[in-house]
């Protein structure tokens, strides 16, 4: 079996050969073109040039339907399931076998039988009558895989399948993938997590900037080599550590509990303390409560129990300054108290894409007196010329390109949007900066700039809580590291003493024996 590829928009002259009965890994950073490539394979997007051969025959995959007919199945990163359908209905959708679907029609009957067969063959269990939306994420993913198998897929593409899974669920997934391989089917695993590639794949293709930069047999390579290939240079993220200072506590979190809208506990009994002039890195697999922790601290969601105390006037020795309980404070009260927040998803949370950069530059601080006519809190109108001039200065300071305050926020690149938000949150030299995924989707040049800004702020004495799913980033920046799993902090260590293996165990939910 062989596929050849020509130029694709985000993909530049890619050739790829997949061997039957193997697990093939495709790795690359965000934006390396992995997903585009797979979308072309699945007929979601059209290639501008190039050819695809399956079992030696040239196929044109002009639609998802054609891809399905050609035996390609895809498990998307965001599941393509109808939540209020039963598992059976989701499985049948698109391959109903006939117009009518009464209880005794061939469609539902065969689908049921097929599910039973697959459950036996692949150990893929799913209750056909369960409501899909009620299933846990791992089970929903199994439904997605069943969908592809019921359609007779010979090539199974999985796009970032473990992003939402717990380590146990991920292990379960890998076990299933091996069974599928054992049945002579081909699996394509797209991911940016090298650990997984090393664990499960037979062969790896590395992509960077829309190109294939290397193909390796998994047994002949190492995670280190792959990560160098992915980034294009050895990953050096080492910054000089600040001299440790004995400064006062800035933030204390006691027994914090947060539930989401569905009343599921997302943060359970978290205890943290953060000192001025220190970066506390919160690591963990995405979806283990870090986002909710950050939002709770920033006052964006309701706290279910516990205490959040931001200490006033830290720096006066240990436990210095009186604390103020902050649980239940609004984001605007917190900002006024010097607590700044750079949100995880800048586009969805940190700015209004349809408004201009000046609008974004004062978001959250728009009630400050300096922005009013006459610079008094009594002024009822904005002083736009002042705001615009200030925005322009800050854009220069933070290297936002182009430095034009009147341009719509949406028209800046991800890195420049992030710098704009960082400028807004950092120029006030906050007592505490809460910052989530500071470099997600940001180009490499900007990453270093952003990291240096964060470190500079720490050196000025701000306390920084850094949440990131990139362990490298945490290791490079943090003075202390806490690891979250399933809503709880499972381990904490000074960065200097951090051991990557131990962090990995914590991220998988293994607590230290004590």
């Amino acid at each position, binding site marked *: 079996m062989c596929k050849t590829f020509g130029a694709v928009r985000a993909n530049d002259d890619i050739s790829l050969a997949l061997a039957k009965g193997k697990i093939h890994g495709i790795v690359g950073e965000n934006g390396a073109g992995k997903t585009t490539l797979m979308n072309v394979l699945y007929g979601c997007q059209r290639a501008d040039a190039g050819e695809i051969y399956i079992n030696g025959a040239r196929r044109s995959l002009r639609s998802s339907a054609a891809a399905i007919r050609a035996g390609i199945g895809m498990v998307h990163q965001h599941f393509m399931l109808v939540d209020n359908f039963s598992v059976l209905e989701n499985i049948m959708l698109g391959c109903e076998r006939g117009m009518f679907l009464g209880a005794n029609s061939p469609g539902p009957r065969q689908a049921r039988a097929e599910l039973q067969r697959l459950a036996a063959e692949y150990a893929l269990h799913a209750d056909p009558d369960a409501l899909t939306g009620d299933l846990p994420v791992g089970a929903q993913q199994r439904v997605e895989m069943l969908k592809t198998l019921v359609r007779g897929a010979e090539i199974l593409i999985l796009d970032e399948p473990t992003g939402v899974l717990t380590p146990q669920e991920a292990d379960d997934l890998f076990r299933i993938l091996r069974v599928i391989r054992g049945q002579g089917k081909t699996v394509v695993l797209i991911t940016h997590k090298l650990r997984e590639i090393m664990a499960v794949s037979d062969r790896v293709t590395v992509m960077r900037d829309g190109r294939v930069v290397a193909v390796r047999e998994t047994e002949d390579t190492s995670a280190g080599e792959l990560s160098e290939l992915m980034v294009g240079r050895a990953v050096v993220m080492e910054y000089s550590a600040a001299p440790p200072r004995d400064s006062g506590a800035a933030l204390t979190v006691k027994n914090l509990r947060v539930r989401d809208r569905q009343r599921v506990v997302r943060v359970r009994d978290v205890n943290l303390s953060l000192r001025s002039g220190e970066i506390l890195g919160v690591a963990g697999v995405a979806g283990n409560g870090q986002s909710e922790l950050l939002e709770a601290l920033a006052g964006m969601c309701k706290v279910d129990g516990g205490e959040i105390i931001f200490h006033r006037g830290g720096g006066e020795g240990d436990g210095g300054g009186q604390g103020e309980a902050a649980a239940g404070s609004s984001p605007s009260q*917190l900002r006024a108290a010097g607590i700044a927040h750079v949100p995880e998803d800048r586009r969805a*949370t940190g700015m209004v*894409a349809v408004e201009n950069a000046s*609008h974004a530059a004062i978001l959250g601080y728009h009630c400050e007196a300096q922005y009013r006519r006459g610079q008094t809190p009594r002024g009822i109108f904005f002083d736009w010329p002042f705001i615009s001039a200030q925005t322009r200065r800050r854009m220069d300071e933070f290297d936002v390109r182009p430095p034009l305050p009147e*341009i719509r926020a949406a028209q800046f690149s991800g890195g*420049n949007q992030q710098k704009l938000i960082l400028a807004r949150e950092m120029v006030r030299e906050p007592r505490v900066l809460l910052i989530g995924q500071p470099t997600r989707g940001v180009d490499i040049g900007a990453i270093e700039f952003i990291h240096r800004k964060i470190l500079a702020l720490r050196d000025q004495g701000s306390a920084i809580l850094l949440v990131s799913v990139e362990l490298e980033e945490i290791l490079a920046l943090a003075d202390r590291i806490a690891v979250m799993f399933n809503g709880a902090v499972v381990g904490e260590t000074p960065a200097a003493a951090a051991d990557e293996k131990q962090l990995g165990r914590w991220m998988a939910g293994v607590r230290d024996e004590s």
Partner: protein
Amino acid sequence: MKVEMPGAPQNMPWWIDPLLLTVCNLALAFAFSALLVWFIGESPPAIAAELLRGAFGSAEAVGYTLFYATNFIFTGLAVAVAYHCGLFNIGGEGQAYIGGLGLGLAALYLDFLPFPLLLLAAMLAAALFGAGWSLVPAVLQARRGSHVVITTIMFNFIAAALMNYLLVNVLIKPGSMSPETRVFADSTHLPMVHDMAAAVGLTLSASPLNLSFFIALLCCVAVWLFLWHMPWGYEVRTVGGNPRAAVYAGISPSRCIILAMCLSGGLAGLLSLNEILGSQHRLLIEFTAGYGFVGIAVALMGRSHPAGIVLAAILFGALYQGGAELAYTFERISKDIVIVIQGLVILFTGALGFMLRPPLGAACAKIFSGGGRAVA
């Protein structure tokens, strides 16, 4: 939520989108209207000429045009303010109707007040009643997530039933057959523009154009200041553009939704200032005559900007005034052609508003490819 528009090339001159695209969409709407006119056997140029003559042919006609435009400014602003908060207020009709009730009650029972005070009371009553009528949909949207579009539609019908009851059974002028109140006292009538002009020595021919035209223009300025120059308006627009960013910034979306809807309802309520206190001088059934819905077309065409709304309102004022004259000249056509045009304008500048953007964008990109700014 306001969406980002697809197919917008990044380096187009700013005016392509609001001006050229709107003009092209309007042209499409008028082209289809002309097609209809031709289809039923009249001459489109003749109808257009008659429309123009009827709307602008004399000082009196211009007065009428601006009189109608006043209505549309109020209802257009009402739709626009809600739109900037990400809400589609279809309830302008009902809010204007109930606003008229407030104004009518003030004019009927407070007519002992000196005129300036009465005007203030009447305006307040109209705005408060209008705002009150939008309050329930607003609160339901803000607190319970009930879609404001559907609830405001329902409230239009509830308003109609309520006013029908009040005018037929309660407020009706004793002994009258038609459902309307007594004529308000002379002291309450808004000064006419031709009278005001006469006072300073200008002679204008009589038309129902009255003081509320200027109040409407003041409202435009106020809305503009509110939305773009005041922190409250900033918060409203933030909620409309990205509710999550609003929460992040410490802005309460529900408070903004209620604020925007109440302002919207209040502006719609002020319609009665022109129609009732300015012209009819009595509260009568169905005085809103669909003006609330014209507001949708006006706001869409005016891109929800006060300046655009004034222009769009004058266009529709001209269509209404010119259209009213059509039936006298042409036997196969009536003023309802204006309603068709209104529908087509909503269709082309609203629902199909993006249709022409890719080709237009491509054409402009060709023309301006050298001059555009590179945006990283």
